[in-house]
Each structure stands twice: as structure tokens, then as C-alpha cells.
């Protein structure tokens, strides 16, 4: 069993109090520096984590934005295709209407004998349509 002679220790401490004080102060300063460094490290980690979360969040937001824009573009293309089809369909309908009207006029000319007996009827139509003067 190791016996400590406290008197000798006290004498030693008294004799070397400056060295002991310097060592204690040095240890205190080192401890404080380590503590501050740890705090600084924690701060850095918090900032880093925050930035990491922001990057991940921004990537998600960006991906979703692109997805939504792509969907909107697809809808736009579909709508344009539909419009194009409707346009072509209506053009065909106009052609039909015009052809029917031409046949109707021809039939009227024949039935009403507008080239022989009822010239005025046809003349009136031409005058109404184009504003030309009829000279019998």
C-alpha cells in the first residue's frame, strides 16, 4: 500500500508553486480552447446540416417543378392536337356547306329557269352579293 506523505507534498508544492500554477493555468486554457473548439464545431455542423437539408429540399422542389412543367407541356400539346383536328374537321364541314350551297344555287337556276324566264332573280342575287348593276 502506497503511503502519501502529505507534508512532503505540501512542501514540494510550496517550493514549486510557480510551476504548478503555470501547469494549472495551461490546463485551464487548453480546456477552455477545447470547449470553444467543440462549440465552434457544433455550430459548423449545424450550418452544414442546414445547408445539406436545403440542397436536398431544393433538389426535390426543382424535380417536382420540372415534372409539373412537363405535364403542362404535354397537356398543351394534346390541346393543340385537338384544336388542329377540330380545325380540319370544320374546314371539311365548310367545304361541304359551300358545295351544298353551290348545288342549291345551280338547282335554283335550273328549277326557276333563271337563265331564261326569271333572269331578274339571278340578277338580284348578283347585285345583292357583289353590288354590280344589272343591264338587261
Amino acid at each position, binding site marked *: 500500500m502506497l503511503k502519501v506523505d502529505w507534508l512532503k507534498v505540501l512542501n514540494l508544492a510550496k517550493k514549486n508553486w510557480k510551476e504548478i*500554477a503555470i501547469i494549472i493555468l495551461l490546463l485551464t486554457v487548453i480546456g477552455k480552447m477545447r470547449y470553444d473548439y467543440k462549440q465552434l464545431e457544433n455550430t459548423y455542423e449545424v450550418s452544414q446540416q442546414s445547408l445539406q437539408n436545403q440542397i436536398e*429540399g431544393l433538389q426535390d*422542389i426543382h424535380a417536382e417543378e420540372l415534372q*409539373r412543367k412537363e405535364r403542362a407541356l404535354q397537356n398543351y400539346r394534346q390541346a*393543340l392536337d385537338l384544336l388542329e383536328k377540330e380545325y380540319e374537321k370544320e374546314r371539311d364541314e365548310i367545304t361541304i356547306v359551300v358545295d351544298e350551297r353551290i348545288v342549291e344555287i345551280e338547282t335554283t337556276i*335550273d328549277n326557276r329557269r333563271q337563265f331564261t324566264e326569271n333572269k331578274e332573280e339571278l340578277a338580284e342575287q348578283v347585285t345583292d352579293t357583289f353590288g354590280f348593276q344589272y343591264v338587261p
Partner: protein
Amino acid sequence: MVAHAESPQFTIVGKNEPAPFEGVLFNKRGIAELLVLPLEYRLECDLEVEYRIDVESTEFQLERQNFQIRIDALNREYDLRVEQKDIEISTLQEALLAQAPARKWWWFVGGVAAGVVTTYGAYRVFNEQ
């Protein structure tokens, strides 16, 4: 001159040829097509206007949707940044509070004591030398 019913035809007649004046003579199909022209142009114009308006409206709709998507994304980005900054601030505040305000007097007293001791020690050391 024989006019065919199927295809539109015309000819040019001179004065007394037999016509009261020189001009253009159309057959039945020709005059029928001429008479229908205003109707045809009106229908085509209406259709064209409607089509163009629809196309422009669709493009505008797409543009509006894109702006809406951008606004939504920017709002989400803003919320994310604010949220992360709040978390960061609160974490830093916690770290700061753990150290400073509760023990500031201890730090103050310790600092004064350490200063006194250091000054006295230095005084003793340099005084002895």
C-alpha cells in the same frame, strides 16, 4: 358555246356578240361558285379567327401554368430556407444559451480572479528576479 354543268367556266364576249357590252360570261357552275364565295370567305374567316384565338388561349394557358408552377416552387423554396434558417437559429441559440447567460457571473468572477492571480504571480516572479 356549250357550258358544262360540272366545271365552272367563263368566256369573254365582245359588244353585240351577242351582248349589250363587252364583258365576261360565266356558266351556271361558275356563277354559283362566285355567288357562294362571300359565304365561303366568311365561314373560313370565322373559323380561322376562332382557331387562332383558341391557339393563343392555349399558349397563354401554358404560360400561365408555367408561371404558377414557378411561383409555387419559389414559395416552397422560400419556406424551406426560412424553415432551415429557423432550425439553425434555434440550434445556435440553444448552444449559445447553454454557455453564456446562466453562468455569466461565474465567468466574470473567474476571469477577474484569474487576472488577479496571473498579475500577482507575474509580479512575484518578476519582482523576485
